[in-house]
C-alpha cells in the first residue's frame, strides 16, 4: 500500500477524512511518528502548514528561501523582541534548514529527568535502540576532516592553542558537495533528513502527507480527542478549503512553539497550569574575528567542530555554554554586524576575511508560549541572571578562541560595538549578569532550538504528557517533538526528537489500534 504527498494549495473543495491517526507537523518527530503508525498498518495522515519543497526548489538565495523555509520569513521573535527564533515550516520542518548536527541526549540530562522530573522509561539504556535505529536511518557519521572548512579549522586551532576541549561533530549528510548553503535547504539532496528519508518511507507504507494545510483546532470533549480541524492555504496564503479529520489519535509534532500554541488555542485541559510553560530556547549570539587570510566561511560544511570546554550537562553547572561556528551568507551577516551606513559597508568588505563563532547557552530560563485571539503564538522569555552571565562569558570565550587562532581584530556585535585588538583587552570585559553591553537587547540573540512546553513526566501536577507521550487528561493526544523535554538538553535537539518519537511511537500505535 502506498500513500501520497498532496498539496493542499490545489484543493478546490473541502476535505473530510476519517482515519486512525493524524499527525500535526512533519519535522523530525512528526515524520517518525507518521512512519511508525503507517508501518503498523494504520490509516494515517500528516498535516503540514508549509509547502512541499524539492531539491530543485532550493536555489541558495536567502531572499527566496527564508519565506519558504521559515516561520514569518525568519522574523519570529520573543514578545519583547530580544531574541529572534528561527523555526522551520514546510514538509520536513526544521530538518530541511538545520545544519545536520547529530548528538544524543546527554546521559546527565536523562538522569536529571528521571530523578527530578518524574520521567520514566527514558534512560540511556531505554533509548539506546531508538538512537541506534535513527542513526542508521539517517546515515549519521562523524564529519570527516577534509570536509572541515576554514572557519571550523580556526575553531579547532583556537581550541588547540588554548588547550580547550574540542572535537569533530557528527552529521546526517551523504554525498555532501560542501556548497555551504545548508541553512537554505540542500540543492544536492545530501541531507538525510525527514524530507528525504523518513517521510518517503512513511508514504511508502501508506501514509498521506498534506502540505499547505494548517491545523487550527484539536477536537476533543475534555477527556479524549476525536480529530483535528484545519485550513488549506493557496499559494498566497489564503484559505482555499477547510479540512475536517476524525481520528482517535492526534500526534502533536509542530515544535515546542506550534504544538503548545495549538493545544492552548484548542482549550486542551490544563488543570495544573503546565501547558506552554517551561519554554527553553538555547539562546546564542555571535563573535566575529578578522583574519589576514581569506576565510570564506560561507563555503563548505557550516558546522563541523565544537568547543565543549565551557559546557557541562550536570545539574547546577556554571559551565553552560556550547561554542561552534556560525557563518552566514551576506544578508544574515549584514544584519549581525554592528552599526549602519558607511562604517557598516566598510566592515562588510572584510566579509571574506571573517571567522564567526557562536556561544549557545544551555539555558535554565523558563519561558512560556501563549496565544492571541487568532491562535497565533507569542513567546514570553526573559533571560535570567544566570543565563545572561553564561552568554556574556561565552562571548568572551569565543573572542579568546579567535585571538588564539590568529585573529587581528575581534568584534562582538553589540550596541555599542565591542572591538578588541589584543587578547588582553578582554580581561576587563564585564561578564556579569549586570553587564550593560553583553545582554539581551544590546547583543543580537538568536534561537534555533525551542524546547519544553508540553513536558514529559508521570506527575500531572508538574508535566503535560505522561512518560508514554500521551496527554495526562486527553486520551489519544500524543506529543512527539521538542515540547517533550523537561529542560534544555544543551545539544542540538534533532536527533533527540527523532529518537523520542521513535521510542514513544508504540504507545501511539497501541492507542490507535484500540480506537
Amino acid at each position, binding site marked *: 500500500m502506498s500513500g501520497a504527498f498532496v498539496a493542499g494549495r490545489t484543493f478546490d473543495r473541502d476535505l473530510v477524512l476519517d482515519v486512525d491517526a493524524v499527525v500535526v507537523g512533519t519535522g523530525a518527530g512528526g515524520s517518525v511518528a507518521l512512519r511508525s503508525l503507517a508501518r503498523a498498518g494504520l490509516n494515517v495522515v500528516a498535516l503540514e502548514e508549509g509547502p512541499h519543497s524539492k531539491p530543485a526548489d532550493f536555489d541558495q538565495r536567502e531572499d527566496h528561501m527564508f519565506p519558504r523555509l521559515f516561520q514569518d520569513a525568519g522574523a519570529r521573535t520573543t514578545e519583547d523582541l530580544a531574541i529572534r527564533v528561527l523555526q522551520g515550516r514546510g514538509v520536513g520542518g526544521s530538518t530541511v534548514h538545520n545544519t545536520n548536527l547529530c548528538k544524543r541526549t546527554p546521559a546527565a540530562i536523562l538522569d536529571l529527568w528521571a530523578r527530578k522530573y518524574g520521567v520514566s522509561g527514558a534512560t540511556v539504556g531505554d533509548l539506546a535502540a531508538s538512537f541506534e535505529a535513527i542513526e542508521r536511518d539517517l546515515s549519521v557519521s562523524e564529519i570527516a576532516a577534509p570536509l572541515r572548512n576554514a572557519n571550523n579549522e580556526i575553531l579547532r586551532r583556537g581550541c588547540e592553542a588554548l588547550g580547550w576541549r574540542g572535537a569533530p561533530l557528527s552529521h546526517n549528510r551523504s554525498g555532501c558537495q560542501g556548497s555551504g548553503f545548508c541553512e537554505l535547504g540542500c*540543492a544536492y539532496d545530501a541531507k538525510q533528513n525527514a524530507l528525504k528519508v523518513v517521510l518517503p518511507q512513511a508514504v511508502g507504507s501508506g501514509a498521506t502527507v498534506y502540505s499547505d494545510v494548517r491545523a487550527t483546532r484539536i477536537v476533543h470533549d475534555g477527556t479524549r480527542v476525536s480529530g483535528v480541524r484545519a485550513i488549506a492555504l493557496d499559494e498566497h496564503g489564503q484559505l482555499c478549503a477547510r479540512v475536517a479529520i476524525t481520528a482517535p489519535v492526534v500526534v502533536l509534532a509542530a515544535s515546542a512553539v506550534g504544538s503548545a500554541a495549538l493545544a492552548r488555542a484548542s482549550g486542551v485541559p490544563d488543570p495544573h497550569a503546565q501547558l506552554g510553560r517551561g519554554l527553553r530556547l538555547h539562546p546564542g549570539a555571535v563573535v566575529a574575528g578578522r583574519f589576514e587570510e581569506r576565510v570564506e566561511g560561507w563555503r563548505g560544511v557550516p558546522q563541523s567542530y565544537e568547543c565543549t570546554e565551557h559546557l557541562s550537562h550536570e545539574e547546577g553547572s556554571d559551565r553552560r555554554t556550547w561554542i561552534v561556528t556560525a557563518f552566514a551568507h551576506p544578508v544574515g551577516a549584514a*544584519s549581525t554586524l554592528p552599526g549602519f551606513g558607511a562604517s557598516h*559597508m566598510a566592515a562588510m568588505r572584510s*566579509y571574506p576575511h571573517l571567522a564567526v563563532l557562536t556561544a549557545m547557552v544551555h539555558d535554565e530560563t523558563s519561558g512560556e508560549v501563549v496565544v492571541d485571539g487568532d491562535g497565533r503564538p507569542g513567546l514570553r522569555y*526573559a533571560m535570567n541572571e544566570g543565563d545572561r552571565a553564561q552568554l556574556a562569558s561565552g562571548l568572551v570565550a569565543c573572542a579568546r578562541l579567535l585571538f588564539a587562532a590568529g585573529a587581528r581584530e575581534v568584534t562582538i556585535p553589540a550596541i555599542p560595538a565591542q572591538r578588541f585588538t589584543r587578547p588582553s583587552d578582554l580581561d576587563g570585559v564585564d561578564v556579569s549578569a549586570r553587564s550593560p553591553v553583553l545582554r*539581551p537587547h544590546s547583543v543580537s540573540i538568536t534561537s534555533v532550538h525551542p524546547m519544553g512546553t508540553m513536558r514529559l513526566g508521570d506527575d500531572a501536577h508538574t508535566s503535560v504528557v505522561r512518560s508514554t507521550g500521551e496527554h495526562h487528561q486527553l486520551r489519544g493526544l500524543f506529543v512527539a517533538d521538542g515540547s517533550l523535554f523537561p529542560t534544555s538538553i544543551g545539544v542540538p535537539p534533532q536527533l533527540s526528537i527523532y529518537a523520542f518519537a521513535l521510542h514513544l511511537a508504540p504507545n501511539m500505535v497501541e492507542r490507535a489500534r484500540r480506537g
Partner: protein
Amino acid sequence: MRGTKLVCEENGEHAPPAPGVPQRKLSRRRILAASSGLVLAAALGTAIVRSRGYAIAPDRKLLTLSPWQFVVVEHAARRIASSDRPGDASVPTADDLDVAGFVDAWLANMSDHIRRDLGRFLAYLEHLAPVAVGFASRFTRLGPDDQDAVLASIESSRHDLLRSGFEGLKSLVFAGYYRDPRAWSLLGYDGPLVGRPPAGWR
C-alpha cells in the same frame, strides 16, 4: 487585578497560577515596555494626523506599506545602506536596488502583528525621533547627516524596544540590499552555486 501578580523579573520556574487564569507579570520590564508602547501609540496617532504629503511614483504598486511608510523606508534605507565610498559608481545605492520596494514585498511574508509593529516604529522614526534629537522636522525632510544622527540616536536608545525596532528595520534594509548580486561583488561573495559544476567552486 484578577490574574495579575507581582513577580520577580528574574524568573526561574513559574509558580503555578490558578487553573485557567493566564499568568501576568508586572515587572520593570513590563512597565518599560508599556511606557514604550505609549510612546509608539502616540507616534501612531501623530502619523495618522500627519500622513499626507508623501509622494510615490505613480506606477509603484504597494503590497503592504502605505505611501508615507514607503517613503520613510526609502529615506532610512538610503542612510542605513549608504556607501563607504561616496561618488564611487560601482557601489549600488539603496534606490538602485529598490530596497524599499523589496521591504514592501517581503513584509507580505510576515504576520499582521509584525507589520503592525513596524508601522508603529516607522511612525516614531518619522515624527518623534527627530524631535527627541532636537530637530523640528520630519525625518524625511532632514538632510543626510541629520538623518544619520536620528538613526544613531535610536540605535543607541536606552529603550530596549526602540533599539530592537531599529535592528528590525536594519535587517529588512540589509535583506533588500545584500540579496542583490550587484551588492555581492562588494564583498567578494560569489553567490549561489546551483548549476555550476562542483569542480568550479571547490
